[in-house]
């Protein structure tokens, strides 16, 4: 048996080779714009505008220096991005953990429907609710405020958070909750001392995903902020309108905007994969 399986396992087939090549090709096509952005960020504006693409050049930090210190104040936007992304994640966790807990452990006849309904709100194009939200924000003085953006991001990400946390909670055996109940734990104690530690990998991956979603969000940031609460998405967009097409500076700004979240995602990828596949195999 082992004799017959061993060679077939190590045999390189034509189909396998072609599939590997295709995978590399797709990866390169997907990664190339990112690579080009990083390369352009280290070029001068002249090199960046050159009709003939330049792969070999002397790198310069000038565009990064301009992007950070010249007028547009990168740190202001980055701070806004950080506050809205992290803040909305924390607020979201505070609100969705009890909601998901109730739905997972004390379901009603309408729980499944409610879950589907919540996710269905994500099907509505953002542009469809732009005017109502804009008007509400304007009349309540939330336009161009961090608090307004934070509230918007929180509510925007709540359906996906509830859905994810609900699935992690569902993986916790019911007997453990009952054991805690018999041991004398109240609902809050059961949640804090038993359920949350057990669902921690899932909660972490939810938090990471939602932070990334909020960080990358550009539509609402551009639409309801101007300068005060504007995030990095607005900062990047501002290059085009205010400063013309300065490719090298635009690329440096984009690298600065995307780097933190890429680094975060890279560091947390194991945690995320673990969280996203939590309970997939018993």
């Amino acid at each position, binding site marked *: 048996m082992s004799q017959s399986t061993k060679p077939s396992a190590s045999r390189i087939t034509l189909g396998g080779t072609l599939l590997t090549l295709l995978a590399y090709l797709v990866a390169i096509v997907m990664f190339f714009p990112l690579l080009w952005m990083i390369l352009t960020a280290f070029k001068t504006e002249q090199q960046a505008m050159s009709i003939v693409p330049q792969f070999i050049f002397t790198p310069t930090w000038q565009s990064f220096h301009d992007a950070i210190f010249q007028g547009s104040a990168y740190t202001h936007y980055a701070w806004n991005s950080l506050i809205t992304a992290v803040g909305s994640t924390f607020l979201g966790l505070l609100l969705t953990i009890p909601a998901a807990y109730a739905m997972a452990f004390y379901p009603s006849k309408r729980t499944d429907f409610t879950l589907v309904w919540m996710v269905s709100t994500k099907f509505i194009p953002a542009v469809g609710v732009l005017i109502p939200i804009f008007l509400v924000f304007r009349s309540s003085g939330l336009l161009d405020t961090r608090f307004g953006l934070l509230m918007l991001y929180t509510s925007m990400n709540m359906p996906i958070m509830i859905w994810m946390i609900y699935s992690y909670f569902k993986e916790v*055996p019911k*007997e*453990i909750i*009952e*054991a*805690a*109940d*018999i*041991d*004398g*734990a*109240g609902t809050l*104690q059961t949640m804090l*001392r*038993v359920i949350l*530690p*057990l669902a921690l990998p899932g909660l972490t991956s939810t938090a990471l995903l939602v932070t990334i979603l909020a960080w990358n969000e550009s539509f609402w940031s551009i639409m309801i902020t101007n300068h005060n609460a504007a995030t990095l998405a607005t900062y990047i967009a501002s290059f085009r309108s205010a400063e013309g097409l300065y490719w090298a500076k635009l690329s440096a700004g984009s690298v600065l905007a995307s780097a933190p979240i890429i680094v975060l995602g890279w560091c947390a990828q194991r945690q995320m994969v673990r969280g996203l596949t939590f309970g997939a195999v018993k």
Partner: protein
Amino acid sequence: MAIVELNNVSKHYGDKGPGAVEDFNLRTRDGEFIVLVGPSGCGKTTTMRMIAGLEQNTGGDILFNEQEMSGVPAKHRDIAMVFQSYALYPHMSVHDNMAFSLKLKKIDKTEIKQRVEAAAKILGIEHLLDRKPRALSGGQRQRVALGRAIVREPQVFLMDEPLSNLDARLRVEMRAEIVKLHRRLKVTTFYVTHDQVEAMTMGERIVVMNAGHIQQVGTPDELYDSPDNMFVAGFIGTPSMNFIKMRRHGEQLQGTDASLALEPWLKDKVPEGEELWVGIRPEHLRTVDDSRHTREGIRLRGKIEVIEPLGAVSLIQLKTGEHRITTQLEGRPRLALDQELELVSDMSRLHYFGLDERNLTVNAPAAEEAASLQGHQE
């Protein structure tokens, strides 16, 4: 410790249809070991969960020491439960698992330490206190689950099929451990199982349940010697009791495979021409050359279909006309498949059931005779 009383307790999940548990009545003695046994879906676990307060009874009363418990949350009932899946907290060490309930009660740290260590010593798990449940074997997890229950010093222990995830050998070991533990702690215990061997070996009294109803409550001997009905007769004892349908013709009971003299006390209970079931336990059927029967009852002849040698005994299955009869013979008798075999049972070992499946033998002279014969043989 508590006297637990269940009066007409029932559980209905919907408005229509039969309940999961109907009219359950039981009063335990203080410190008694009660086993609830029955097939899957018979309502035994639901009954236990109602005692625990994990499910609310829809009818009747549950009392601990005369105090009404219906509606009292599980955490205020002063009970401890061992779950089938153990339900240990995976993120806590063995020590923390056992100490969790005591910490919630805000008991002094020194006392918690003492109680956890004492329980760990009783169960022989002192060396495992720092480990997480995932680093334990099934038997060790079982001990931790028991430890978590005993540190609480509850008034009632509830155990829901706690041994069903263990292998056969460990199950026998743990069975004895639990019985010893009960003798030592003398806490009123409810033990749910579907395994009648566990029930017979552990229970001081056994409650046999089927389809939400109590079939019989009694000591292991009572259930074995005088089953109230065919369900209990068939459920208690391994292999199951054999049943043969017969009809009264004058002073005889006649079936397709055998005939039998009618016991005088049965004359009033079975009218002429009426059918009844005769029950014989496999271990009470012997070969005709075995002289240990005093008064020959039924004689059955058939062809051997299956031989199962178990070492000390052998199980033989015969096809006798329309019935399949199982017998348990001592040792490994020299028998072959398809061989004709004639079996006989002592008259006093027979059980008679009406067509309503209720035992006609209960309180009859035969039952008393059987009991005395049992005593004589021992």
